[in-house]
């Protein structure tokens, strides 16, 4: 059995690199789309200021893009180095979208990013706009493939376990591609990225207006960010709701943990706005509930109950017992692949094989598990309730605040009153970190809420790690911390320096005045 310390270290390393990587991804997604909007206005109106705006925000996009690519590569390598069993067990399915993401990210995005920066004077207006649009499309397609892979971890469809190769094998690529969880995650995540980009443009522009610098560019940028951001922030709520609905279809334990709902709620279930989850007593103290809301979110109905943690643990217990049958049959099939009786039993119970594997944390042979061990394994299917409960509420709270922020900005933009509202400009500037916090919390809810599974219901996380020495993981983790800290310092310095210099300092605005014609200076 792989050392629990190595598993924890490998998880910490992946979490660190993934959360760090996602500081850059949403800004790339958001800024690329804002660049398309600004450049489209330039192409349609022919007004030079929109081109200058696109070029200025493009510099900030470029710095961020380079960091995003650099920090993304390391995660893909970790599947091989730190998660070798995982890579073998599910690589047949997981590998394809990951490879496609690499192709999209490296070939499509990188090619057109080069053209974006060096093509201003070499391409026609429309051709350059197409290039910018392809950069944005490439960014979104990269996100699509990664989220298809990630969604498969949440809801593994289109695959089945092969007892001969001891791995999950792809049986329907279209099922993986059109996984409903993937579609919901993609639009939710991309819309969240657009919100990050919009808040970034809004906050930086607010700073310029407070300074009284680059007013013409900042006002227009704020108007774009306010309208685009408002539409996207509202979309994030709607699309996040769809994710919640799908989670109640296939990850009920995650929904119950997010709600700290220990007992099954009768229909229509109420939503807990505030409470203090007690993981020892299995109750939520001082719960403030809003009737009906959870039932509407999770079941889209008023007559279906929402299962609580206690009942879901009971279901997990039953699935573990069924999984032991699958495990037993699998052992027999490994000895005699032609054993028809074992094959029949395995097919009948294979859906629950992963649940039996949870027992390997407590006993070497799941068949010999005692009722106490089965009970422990069943309760191990409950993720960390307080972390999920608070992460989700904080994320939603920030999301609602951002809708208010964009709504106010939209109103001020429509009334041309940004300069008369310094208090709003300060709020907009200090809101800069909020969308990143919300985005990271969203990933914590999604991935921490998936625990104890690497692949939900199929492969427990502790069985996916590579049996490497702990010292090796400590070394790489320390390397990542040092290297990423240095990268963070460089990134922040570059961004801050570019923002401080601004369109005026970088020579983008005001445009250089053409030299007066010789005939005008020296009349003949």
């Amino acid at each position, binding site marked *: 059995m792989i050392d629990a310390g190595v598993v924890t270290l490998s998880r910490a390393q992946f979490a660190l690199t993934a959360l760090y990587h996602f500081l850059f991804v949403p800004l790339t997604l958001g800024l690329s789309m804002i660049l398309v909007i600004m450049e489209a206005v330039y192409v349609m109106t022919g007004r030079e200021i929109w081109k200058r705006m696109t070029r200025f925000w493009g510099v900030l996009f470029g710095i961020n893009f380079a960091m995003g690519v650099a920090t993304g590569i390391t995660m893909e390598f970790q599947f091989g*180095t730190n998660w*070798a*069993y995982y890579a073998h067990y599910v690589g047949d399915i997981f590998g394809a979208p990951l490879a496609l993401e690499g192709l999209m990210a490296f070939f499509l995005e990188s090619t057109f990013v080069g053209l974006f920066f060096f093509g201003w004077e070499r391409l026609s207006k429309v051709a350059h706009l197409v290039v910018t649009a392809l950069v944005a499309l490439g960014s979104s397609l990269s996100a699509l493939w990664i989220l298809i892979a990630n969604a498969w971890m949440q809801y593994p469809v289109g695959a089945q376990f092969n007892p001969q190769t001891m791995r999950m094998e792809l049986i329907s690529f279209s099922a993986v591609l059109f996984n409903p969880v993937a579609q919901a995650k993609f639009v939710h995540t991309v819309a969240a990225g657009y919100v990050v980009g919009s808040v970034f443009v809004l906050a930086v522009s607010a700073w310029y207006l407070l300074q009284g610098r680059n007013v013409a560019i900042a006002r227009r940028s704020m108007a774009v960010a306010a309208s685009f951001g408002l539409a996207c922030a509202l979309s994030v709520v709607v699309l996040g709701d769809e994710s919640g609905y799908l989670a109640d279809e296939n990850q009920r334990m995650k929904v119950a943990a997010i709600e700290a709902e220990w007992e099954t709620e009768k229909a229509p279930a109420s939503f807990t706005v505030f409470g203090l989850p007690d993981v020892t007593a299995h109750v939520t103290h001082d719960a403030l509930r809003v009737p009906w809301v959870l039932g509407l979110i999770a079941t889209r109905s008023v007559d279906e109950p929402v299962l609580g943690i206690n009942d879901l643990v009971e279901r997990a217990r039953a699935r573990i017992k069924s999984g032991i049958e699958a495990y037993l049959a699998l052992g027999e099939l*490994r000895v005699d692949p032609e054993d028809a009786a074992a094959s029949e039993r395995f097919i009948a119970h294979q859906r629950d094989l992963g649940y039996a594997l949870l027992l390997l944390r407590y006993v070497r*042979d799941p068949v010999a598990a005692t009722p106490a061990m089965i009970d422990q394994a069943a309760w191990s299917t409950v993720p960390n309730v307080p972390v999920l409960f608070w992460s989700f509420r904080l994320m939603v709270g920030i999301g609602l605040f951002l809708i208010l922020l964009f709504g106010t900005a939209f109103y001020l933009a429509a009334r041309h009153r940004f300069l008369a509202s310094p208090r709003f400009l300060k709020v907009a500037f200090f809101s800069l970190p909020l969308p990143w916090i919300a985005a990271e919390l969203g990933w914590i809810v999604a991935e921490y809420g998936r625990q104890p599974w690497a692949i939900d219901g199929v492969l427990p996380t502790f069985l996916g790690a590579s*049996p490497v020495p702990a010292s090796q993981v400590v070394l790489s983790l320390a390397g990542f911390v040092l290297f990423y800290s240095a990268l963070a310092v460089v990134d922040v310095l570059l961004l801050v320096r570019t923002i401080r210099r601004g369109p005026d300092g970088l020579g983008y605005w005001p445009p250089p005045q053409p030299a007066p014609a010789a005939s005008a200076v020296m009349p003949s």
Partner: protein
Amino acid sequence: MEARSDGPARWRGRLRRDVAVLMVLKIAALALLWALFFSPAARVAVDGARVSRELGLTQRQMPPPPASRTSPMRPLSASAP
């Protein structure tokens, strides 16, 4: 600015030297990473048999040990009824 005043030939020479140094440093860093984390010695090769062992299935497949293994001093015939 300084490079431009040196003239194109000197500027190109300096660029070549810088690129060469960077390439050497990059190859050295990649070789170190390969040796530490990706070389056959560091890599964990996983196949079906290894997964089977990891999941404890191999133990279950093994037939019961013969008497000669558990009691090596006992003659084989002694285990016969």
